[in-house]
């Protein structure tokens, strides 16, 4: 179903005014600092908060118009919600958690469990049906929560920071599971992403929320063209590389090769913080893998740092101090040596 919302909401001192459109088959990532209203927006879509004015339209039905009379409660909205801390029911097994939605819709226990087992299989937990939530790792619990939300065949899937509960080692695998499930999911999806990498990997487009307002939305690649705020600039200020990994070697589209800390195979997206790019006058001693000499294309002064744009085969932005700019004599252009430790790259499957 297509989702079309434009609403306002007041909760204590916090006011939220959000307009969003998501089509069936499309995934929208909500980005923004803490307390911007991302989770609240998901709760509005799910019917866990009523809006003060405006409309929430799911498919061709207005489920909330702020007047109260037409408010459709969560149990009749046909949405699937995956909460940040998964909220699995501790007294039920993983299987019964997944079967819960079907049981609530009157499906017989045996059939519901069969369907639940099938969903657990799909998220890679076929053998964990009898486990209690307390026995699952953060990543596993989030998979069960995903299966639980998908098992009722929702038209709209809401994911609140689905990767936050998983530890680093489980994140990539969980992200892959999410990618697979989202590809197969025919409805609309809105997710809260905590970093650009997650948004890149999972979403088709993004909306950036700040202080309860949507400051920018569109395709992810377009976000950096004209950043609407400092937050967006910082957000997209990350260096981002697309390429193909073979083990630790990442070959970029332009042909250059970088070395990354964690081995991967296949198409990947690697992100890198500008601070992780070290600049030198002379070729640095030792043998760091990623070292090259690059032309300085320009400087961008921010409050507490200078962003140095480098050209060449690996276009990258480095963040250095004003003192470093003087030492390296970057103001005059010319070229400089850049070095990046392989471990500074965050690599994720594209």
């Amino acid at each position: 179903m297509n989702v079309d919302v434009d609403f306002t909401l007041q909760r204590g001192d916090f006011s939220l005014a959000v307009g969003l459109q998501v089509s069936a088959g499309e995934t929208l990532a909500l980005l923004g600092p803490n307390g911007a209203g991302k989770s609240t927006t998901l709760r509005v879509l799910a019917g866990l908060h009523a809006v003060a004015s405006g409309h929430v339209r799911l498919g061709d039905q207005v489920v909330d118009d702020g007047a109260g009379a037409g408010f459709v409660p969560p149990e009749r909205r046909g949405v699937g919600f995956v909460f940040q801390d998964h909220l699995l029911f501790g007294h039920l097994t993983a299987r019964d958690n997944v079967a819960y939605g079907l049981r609530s819709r009157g499906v017989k226990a045996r059939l519901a469990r069969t369907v639940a087992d099938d969903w657990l299989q799909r998220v890679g937990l076929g053998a964990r049906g009898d486990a209690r939530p307390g026995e699952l790792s953060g990543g596993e619990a989030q998979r069960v929560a995903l299966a639980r939300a998908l098992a009722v065949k929702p038209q709209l899937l809401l994911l609140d920071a689905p990767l936050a509960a998983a530890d680093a080692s489980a994140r990539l695998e969980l992200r892959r599971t999410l990618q697979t499930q989202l590809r197969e999911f025919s409805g609309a999806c809105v997710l809260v992403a905590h970093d650009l990498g997650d948004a890149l990997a999972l979403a088709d487009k993004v909306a950036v929320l700040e202080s309860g307002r949507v400051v920018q939305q569109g395709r992810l690649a377009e976000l950096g063209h004209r950043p609407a705020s400092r937050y967006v600039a910082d957000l997209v200020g990350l260096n981002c590389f697309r390429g193909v990994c073979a083990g630790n070697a990442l070959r970029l589209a332009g042909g250059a090769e970088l070395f990354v800390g964690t081995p991967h195979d296949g198409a990947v997206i690697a992100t890198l913080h500008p601070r992780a790019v070290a600049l030198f006058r002379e070729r640095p001693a030792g043998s760091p893998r990623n070292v090259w000499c690059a032309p300085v294309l320009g400087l961008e002064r921010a409050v507490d740092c200078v962003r140095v744009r480098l050209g060449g085969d690996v276009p990258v932005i480095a963040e250095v101090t004003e003192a470093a700019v003087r030492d390296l004599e970057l103001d005059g252009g010319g070229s400089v040596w850049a070095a990046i430790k392989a471990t500074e790259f965050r690599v994720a499957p594209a």
Partner: protein
Amino acid sequence: MQAIAALAAALFAAPLVGLALQVPWPELSGLLLADETVDALWLSLQCSVAAAALSVVLGLPLATWLAGGDSLLHRSVRVIATLPMVLPPVVGGIALLLAFGQHGIVGHPLAQWFGVTVPFTTASVVLATTYVAMPYFVLTVEGGIRSCDPRYAAAATTLGATPWRAFCTVTLPMVAPSLRAGLLVAWARALGEFGATITFAGSFQGSTRTLPLAIYHALEAQPDAAIALSMLLLLVSAAVLFLLRRQWFRTP
């Protein structure tokens, strides 16, 4: 400091030892199987179970409602629902007698319209014990529901459960330990109820003379029987504590 602590412990231990030493163990079965004793046992069992059941049926909705708000009304109701815990039971008994007696605010219409008199019947035993025991259930369960994260029930509704179904299948199982604890304490309190019962229900063998009343009654004529029954109640209390060990004796 430690000497005083030991003294305090002794204060609790001495009566237990004193009672245990006086129990006429050889005649125990005979004393416990006497007609009067069996009547009292049976009546106590029935009334305490009925009071515990009534505490759940009436107390669960009340606890749920109390957990749902903090308005002046909520706070006032919580005060009057907690009052029986601190009120001298005999005062509770007199208050019940005045309310449900022939000229009472409830008793008068009951007698006039339905021909029902409550005081000095088995029903009044159940009423008195429920009055005294239900607060324990309500407060325990309210605490349990309050400490239960409401987002779990919200998650259940996003999965298609009605709020009622979410309450029954998610919230209640999550507060099951509180329900169990509240039920046990309420039942134990009902079993031992004395003051309100003797004031509101009197002490008639077979209809209102529960175990505690029977013990009091037997104390002069048959002290051995009183001691045997006391031992029985002591054992029951110990069993209740054992069942509550998870809730009450959790060391962090």
